[in-house]
């Protein structure tokens, strides 16, 4: 037993020495086509990475359930870049040392709320609420609160979920690891999407209930009616449109970027 342990330990040490090789630094997104990439499972980042890698995606693409796991792999050198939305990437840049975002964006996307296919009634109601919020500046105010302030200081209890509303519940599915759009703090939730949904719920005279689940479980949850709608910084794509309905866009031109190690990137 002890001999076996010792052998394993020696092997680990040897491996850590053997696999620490030097690479050519990244300069442009073109280089990513032959590199090990990562994305959160089920996100648009994954689709973009698949397009970039083509046939090689089976061997070069790793998908993670959580961004934190992907970033840990990036820092350990298991992958070279994470394809993700710019805003959460910027948050990683602020709080994790040694990261960089490649200047060149990979694409620009629009965010919308997702619904079960054929739930036209709710889509129309939400669209009406959204356009009112766009017109009277409510939406801008929410974005301003999160993009120009320290949102980690926001107390979840200050967000009004319209408890006890007469119209029943409005159940929203989300993946609360995507700040500043949604984040779990203590027992509550904060984020742009959360506050936006809270406003929508108020306009619909319904009580907001937030269900926190994995991102790739969200389409399943909305199509089986577990939740009324899903709001998690979801990009509108043609493929997704085949399986669910979308509201009007509430974010236009959100960039998809490559998050890399700072010492691995040459501007």
């Amino acid at each position, binding site marked *: *037993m*002890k*001999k076996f*342990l*010792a*052998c394993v*330990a*020696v092997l680990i*040490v040897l491996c850590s020495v053997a696999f620490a090789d030097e690479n050519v630094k990244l300069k442009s997104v073109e280089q990513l086509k032959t590199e090990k990439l990562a994305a959160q499972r089920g996100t648009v980042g994954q689709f973009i990475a698949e397009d970039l890698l083509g046939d090689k995606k089976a061997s070069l693409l790793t998908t993670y359930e*959580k*961004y*934190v*796991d992907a*970033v*840990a792999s990036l820092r350990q050198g298991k992958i070279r870049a994470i394809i993700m939305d710019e805003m959460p990437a910027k*948050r*990683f840049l602020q*709080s*994790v040392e040694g990261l960089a975002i490649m200047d060149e964006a990979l694409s620009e996307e629009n965010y919308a709320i997702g619904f079960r296919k054929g739930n036209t009634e709710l889509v129309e109601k939400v669209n009406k609420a959204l356009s009112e919020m766009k017109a009277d500046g409510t939406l801008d105010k929410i974005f301003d609160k999160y993009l120009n302030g320290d949102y*980690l200081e926001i107390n979840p209890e200050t967000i009004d979920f319209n408890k006890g509303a007469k119209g029943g*519940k409005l*159940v929203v599915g989300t993946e*609360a*690891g*995507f*700040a500043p759009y949604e*984040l*779990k*703090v*203590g*027992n509550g939730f904060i984020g742009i999407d959360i506050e936006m949904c809270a406003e929508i719920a108020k306009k619909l005279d319904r009580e907001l209930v937030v*269900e*926190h*689940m*994995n991102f790739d*479980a969200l389409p*399943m*949850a909305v199509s*089986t*009616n*577990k*939740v009324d709608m899903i709001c998690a910084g979801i990009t509108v794509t043609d493929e997704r449109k085949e399986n669910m309905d979308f509201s009007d866009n509430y974010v236009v031109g959100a960039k998809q970027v490559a998050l890399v190690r700072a010492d691995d990137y040459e501007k």
Partner: protein
Amino acid sequence: MQMTMRNKFLTRHNGAGRGDMLLGVVAVFLLYALYNSGFFTEAAWNDFNRRFYQNFIKDRRYMMLVDGLRATIFMTSWATFIGLIVGLILSVIRVAYKGGARIPVLNALANTYITVLRGTPAMVQLLIWNFTIFASARDLNTQYIAILAFGLNSGAYIAEIFRGGIESIDHGQMEAARSLGLSYGLSMKLVVLPQALRNVIPMLFNEFIALLKETSVAGYIGIDDLTRAGQNIQALTLEHSQPLVMVAIIYLVIVLFLTHVVRKLEEWLSRGRR
């Protein structure tokens, strides 16, 4: 049998062999590597403290772990309870079938149940329960769905534990009881079951321990159990290792405690046994 095996393992003393030497050398090498990478410097210590504060102390974030632990224990306890009931019913059906009370339909059902639930991963069962069977149950707390899924799953295992416990009792015991004029039911109740219980109780505790760890997949259907609480802290502080290691430590402490209880229980149960 298990007891003797373990005692043998624990009391087997090896002198310091080449394995120890090699392990020592590697340990020194690793310590040296850690020292070189600045692991023992004051800066590293301060950094550790700062991150620890961020992860667990600030805004009472440790409460997320406490709530998660509460959910984990809540789910495990109720699931074990359901498992006990289901397991008892199933094992009674199967043992009675062998003992002469033959109801083929029930026995076939019990067999199928055990085969299916033991032959598929608990994680897959959990997803099926939540997204297929209870697809339209929206106001039902997801925790109850998880309890049901884990409970029915562990019921299949517990049924086998019970059956194994009963069948481990020598046939002669039953035959002797029957020859003394006791009915099948009474011989079971007075002679076989008390002896079986002695074998079964430690294994039930082990099932509880296994289930405790198994519930860590509950996060997949949106329950903030202990594992998921750690992941929530990760998302909050963007810190990778500390929350996970902390979660692991909490699981380990609970499991070690329960293992200790099982060991004491085993000793207590085997008192008077020669």
